[in-house]
C-alpha cells in the first residue's frame, strides 16, 4: 500500500529520544580524555573501567554544557538535580549500571521549532533533558569469533533529549532532528557528528485513524544513526502498523531494531521482556545544586541561535528566506557570511556567493562546512575585483571553482591567467571603431533599431577579447559611439 494513501486515513504519532555526546575535554566522571578514534581501551582508568573500589566524580564542565544545551532548547533548568543508577547487564557497560538522571533531570520542558513546506512554523515540545554516561562499544572479532569490548567511549557525557509525541510525519521527524542538531552545534555543546556517534536517535511511534483523539499502541526503535535511516524506519513502521490496524489486528508494544539493508524493523524485545531498570539514587554522588545566577551566566554566554539569526538576516539584510536559511543552516556558513560582511563585503553579494557558489562547491566535493577552504577574505576580494571592473562577474563565477580548489587569493589567479583587464574599455572601443568603419550596413541596421545588429557587434568583440568583455559594457560603449537605437523595431 502506498504511504500517501495510508496517511490520508492514518495519523502517525511520533516522539524522539536523542542522545548527544557533549564536547568536553574529559569524561563525565573521571579524568580520561573524551576523544574519538584512539586505540581501543587506551582512554581508560579505574573509574571508567568500573574497577572495584573506584568512584565517580562529576565533571562540572559536562554538567554546564548540559545546562547550556538545555537553555538553547528553551528548557526549564532545574536548580536541584541528582543522579540515579539505571541497572542492567550489558558487556559494554563495565559497572552493569549506568549513571543517569531519573527522578531529578537537568531540565524539563523546552521546544524546537520546525518549518515544513505546508505548515507554518511548528513547535515540537520537549518533555525533559537529562545527563547520563555513555557505554563502551562491543566489537565482533571475526578472527577469534568473539566479542571484544572497547571502553574508550564508556563514561562520555551524554545529554538525552526526550520530545513529546508531537511529531506527525517522518518528514517532520527528520526536520526536528535536523533543527535540534543545528541548534546544538550553534550552542557549541557538541559536534553532533553522526558518523562518530555524537548524535544518535531512538524513536517511538504509534498510528491511529485520522480524527481519533486516542493514542495507539506504540513501538520503540533504537539506535538510528542517520537521518535517512530515521525516515526510512518511520515510513516502514507506519505502513506496518497501519496495515495491522486496518486488517483488524493489534500492534504489539515492543522494542524494535531497524535494518538499513532490508529497510525493515524487527523485534528486539517485547513488553514482557522489558528491562526493570531498578532506578535508585546514586549513593556515590551528592545531589547537584545550580543557582539561578549561574544559569543566568550560562544563558548570557549563548551565541545567537539559528532561528533568530535567520529572521535577522531577512530583516536587516533583505535576504530571501531561502538564502537566509542556507546561510544559517550551519554555524560555520553563518560565521563565514558574518565575517565577510565585517570585512566590508556587501551583504546581499556576500550572501549570494556563499549560498550559491560556496555551497555548490561544498556539495559537489562532499565537504562539511567546518572543512570549507574559503576564507571571508577571498570572497570579499573576488567581489572587489568585479566591482572595480578588473574582471566581469561571469569571469568571476568561472574562476570560482579554481579559487575554491586551490585556496589562492583571487587576485593572484586573475594575474596568473592574464585575465585582468578583461573589461579593458579602450580595447573594446578600438574593436568597435574598426567595425563601425568597416561595416556601414551594420551601423545602419543598428541605428534602425534592429536587435540583431547589437548582437552582431557583441559577437566579434567577444571573440576578439576571448570572452573577457562584458556584454553590457559593449552595449554601453556602442551607445556612446552611435547613440541609442530607435525603440520598438526589430
Amino acid at each position, binding site marked *: 500500500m502506498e504511504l500517501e494513501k495510508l496517511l490520508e486515513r492514518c495519523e502517525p504519532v511520533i516522539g524522539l529520544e536523542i542522545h548527544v555526546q557533549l564536547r568536553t575535554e574529559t569524561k563525565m566522571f573521571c579524568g580520561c580524555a573524551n576523544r574519538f578514534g584512539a586505540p581501543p581501551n587506551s582512554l581508560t582508568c*579505574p573509574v571508567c*573501567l*568500573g*574497577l*572495584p*573500589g*573506584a*568512584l*565517580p*566524580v*562529576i565533571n562540572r564542565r559536562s554538567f554546564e554544557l548540559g545546562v547550556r544545551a538545555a537553555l538553547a532548547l528553551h528548557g526549564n533548568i532545574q536548580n536541584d538535580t541528582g543522579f540515579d*543508577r539505571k*541497572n542492567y*547487564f550489558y*558487556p559494554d557497560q*563495565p*559497572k*552493569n*549500571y549506568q549513571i543517569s538522571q531519573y527522578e531529578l533531570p537537568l531540565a524539563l520542558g523546552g521546544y524546537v521549532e520546525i518549518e515544513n513546506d505546508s505548515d507554518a512554523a511548528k513547535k515540537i515540545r520537549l518533555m525533559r533533558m537529562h545527563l547520563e554516561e555513555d557505554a563502551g562499544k562491543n566489537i565482533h572479532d571475526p578472527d577469534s569469533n568473539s*566479542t571484544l*569490548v572497547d571502553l574508550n567511549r564508556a563514561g562520555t557525557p551524554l545529554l538525552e533529549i526526550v520530545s513529546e509525541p508531537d511529531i506527525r510525519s517522518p518528514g517532520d521527524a527528520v526536520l526536528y532532528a535536523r533543527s535540534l542538531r543545528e541548534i546544538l552545534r550553534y550552542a557549541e555543546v557538541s559536534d553532533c557528528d553522526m558518523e562518530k556517534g555524537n548524535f544518535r536517535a531512538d524513536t517511538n511511534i504509534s498510528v491511529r485513524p485520522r480524527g481519533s483523539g486516542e493514542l495507539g499502541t506504540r513501538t520503540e526503535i533504537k539506535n538510528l544513526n542517520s537521518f535517512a535511516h530515521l525516515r526510512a524506519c518511520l515510513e516502514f513502521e507506519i505502513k506496518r502498523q497501519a496495515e495491522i490496524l486496518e486488517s483488524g489486528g493489534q500492534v504489539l508494544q515492543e522494542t524494535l531494531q531497524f535494518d538499513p539493508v532490508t529497510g525493515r524493523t524487527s523485534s528486539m524485545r517485547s513488553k514482557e521482556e522489558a528491562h*526493570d531498570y*531498578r*532506578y*535508585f539514587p546514586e*549513593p*556515590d*554522588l*551528592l545531589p547537584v545544586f545550580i543557582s539561578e545566577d549561574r544559569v543566568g551566566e550560562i544563558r548570557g554566554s549563548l551565541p545567537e541561535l539559528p532561528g533568530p539569526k535567520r529572521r535577522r538576516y531577512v530583516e536587516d539584510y533583505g535576504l530571501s528566506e531561502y538564502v537566509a536559511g542556507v546561510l544559517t543552516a550551519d554555524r560555520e556558513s553563518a560565521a563565514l557570511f558574518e565575517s565577510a560582511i565585517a570585512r566590508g563585503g556587501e551583504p546581499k553579494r556576500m550572501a549570494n556567493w556563499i549560498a550559491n557558489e560556496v555551497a555548490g562547491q561544498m556539495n559537489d566535493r562532499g565537504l562539511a562546512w567546518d572543512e570549507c577552504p574559503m576564507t571571508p577574505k577571498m570572497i570579499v576580494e573576488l567581489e572587489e575585483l568585479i566591482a572595480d571592473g578588473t574582471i566581469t562577474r561571469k569571469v568571476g563565477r568561472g574562476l570560482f571553482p579554481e579559487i575554491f580548489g586551490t585556496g589562492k587569493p583571487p587576485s593572484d589567479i586573475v594575474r596568473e591567467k592574464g585575465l585582468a583587464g578583461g573589461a579593458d574599455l579602450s580595447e573594446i572601443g578600438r574593436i568597435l571603431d574598426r567595425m563601425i568603419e568597416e561595416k556601414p550596413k551594420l551601423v545602419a541596421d543598428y541605428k534602425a533599431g534592429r536587435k540583431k545588429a547589437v548582437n552582431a557587434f557583441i559577437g566579434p568583440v567577444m571573440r576578439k577579447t576571448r570572452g573577457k568583455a562584458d556584454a553590457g559594457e559593449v552595449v554601453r560603449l556602442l551607445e556612446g559611439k552611435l547613440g541609442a537605437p530607435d525603440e520598438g523595431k526589430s
Partner: protein
Amino acid sequence: MISTATARRIAGDVRSGKRTAREVVEESLARIEKYDGEIHAFVHVCSDEALARADGIDAAVARGETDGLLLGVPVAVKDNICTRNIPTTAASRILENYRPPYDAHVIERLLGEGAVIVGKTNQDEFGMGSTSQYTVYEATRNPWNSGRVPGGSSGGSAAAVAAGMVPIALGTDTGGSIRQPAAFCGVTGLKPTYGRVSRYGLIAFASSLDQIGPITADAPDAALALRVIAGRDERDSTSADKKVPAYDGKPVSGGSIEGLKIGLPLEYFPDNLDGEVAAAVRLGVSGLEKLGASVVEVSLPHTRYAIAAYYIIAPAEASSNLARYDGVHYGRRAESHDVRSLYVRSRSEGFGPEVQRRIMLGTFALSSGYYDAYYLKAQKVRTLVRRDFEKAFERCDLIVSPVAPGSAFPLGKWLDDPIRMYLGDVFTVPASLAGCPAVSVPCGMTGDGLPIGMQVIGPEFREGLVLGAAAAYQKATDHPAGIPSEIRKIESRSGANN
C-alpha cells in the same frame, strides 16, 4: 613472651633509632608466621614487600627523614581495600587472584606516613556477615577461644590486632563490621563518621553506609590511625570537606572526662540482653561515672525499625554495586558460550550463599512495584533514626551501649539462620544509618573468658570526643585482661618445645 607495643611507641622508637623498621616488621611477620596457622587472620602476607619497604624506611631514617606519623609501624589491611599489585579479593571467589592497579586513598595515606603493609586480612565476603565464616578462605578463629568466631565482617583485622600480630589493622564497617569483631576480640575499633574517611579504593558493599576505620589495641592508637587516614579526598564525592583535628586520643578537657553527659538509651538494654553483657556494660558506665561523667537516660525510639531498614538499604545498594562482577572484565570467568550464561555461571560460582542472598534481597527491594514499599520506606526510617540521634545529643554528649547482644559465639552457629544472625547487628546498625562515629571498647570478660565490648557513640565528626572518652576509660581500667588464651597456648607450646 610477646610485648604489645603500641603504634605510638613503635613510631617513636623507629624515629629515635632505638629500633629499626626492619626489626619491627620482622617481629610482626614472625608472629603472623607463628600464630596465624591457627588464627587464620590473614589471607595474604606480603613479607618481601614489607621487608623491602622497612629497609627503605630505615635508610630514610639514616638520612634524617623521620617525619611519618606511623614510621615503621606494621599495618594489616582488610581484604576489601585495594592495594596496588597485592591481591585484593574481598574474600570472594569471584575476585580470586585479582590485583588492583591502584592503591586506595587510605593506603596512600598510610604509606605517606611511613606505615608498612604486612598483609591482607580475612573477612566475610564483600563485608556481608558478622562471623568471618562467609569467606572463600579458611574461617578466622577468635584468639580468645579458637572454637569461637572472631566476629565480622572485619574478623581478620580484629583477630590480628588481638593476637598482637600488628598494632593497627584497617577494617570496614557498614552495619557494625568494625565494632562487633573488635568487641568479640577484645580490641578497640572505630567506625568514623560517614564521610570522614575517603572510600576511594574500598570495594563497595553499601555505598551510603561503608566507612573505613582503624582497629587497634587502644584508643590513642585508633586516634593516631584516624588522623592519618581521615580527610577530604577529591576522588570520593561523599568525603567531607572538613578539617581533620590532630586527634591525639587524649581525654577531653585537660585529661579528664569530668562533666561529660553520658546518655544511656533505654532501647539498647532490652530484657533479653545477655546478662553478662548487660552487667559488663553497666560496669563500664559506672567506670565513666567515677571519672566524672554524669549519666542521663535517653530514648532512641526508632531503634526497633533500624535492622529492617538496614537490611533493605544495604542489600539494595549491594545488588547494584556487585553487578560489575560478571566475568567479563576481570576476576573469575566461568566457561560459557554466550554472554548470558557467562553472567549466570560466573556469578553463581563466584559468589557465596550469603552474598547471593543479599543480592536477591536487594534486587527485589528495588524492583518496580516494590520500590516504594521497601526502599523508599526504609529511607524514611533512616531519616527517623538519624533524628533520634540528633534529639538524643541535645541531652547528652555521648551515648553508651552494648556493641552486640552477646559475646563471641561458636563457629558454625546460626549459619543456617540468617535472620537470627542479622538481629545480632541491632546495636551497631543505628549509628551506621545515622552516620555517627562510634567506637567499641573492651569493658569486661564473660565467665568463659570471652571479651565484652562497650559502644561509645558521638555526634557527627566528634571522633575526638568519642576516642577521648574511650582513652580515659582505658587508662583507668585494664580491659581486656592480658594476652588472649589461644596465643598464650601457642606461646607455651613453643616455649615447651624450645
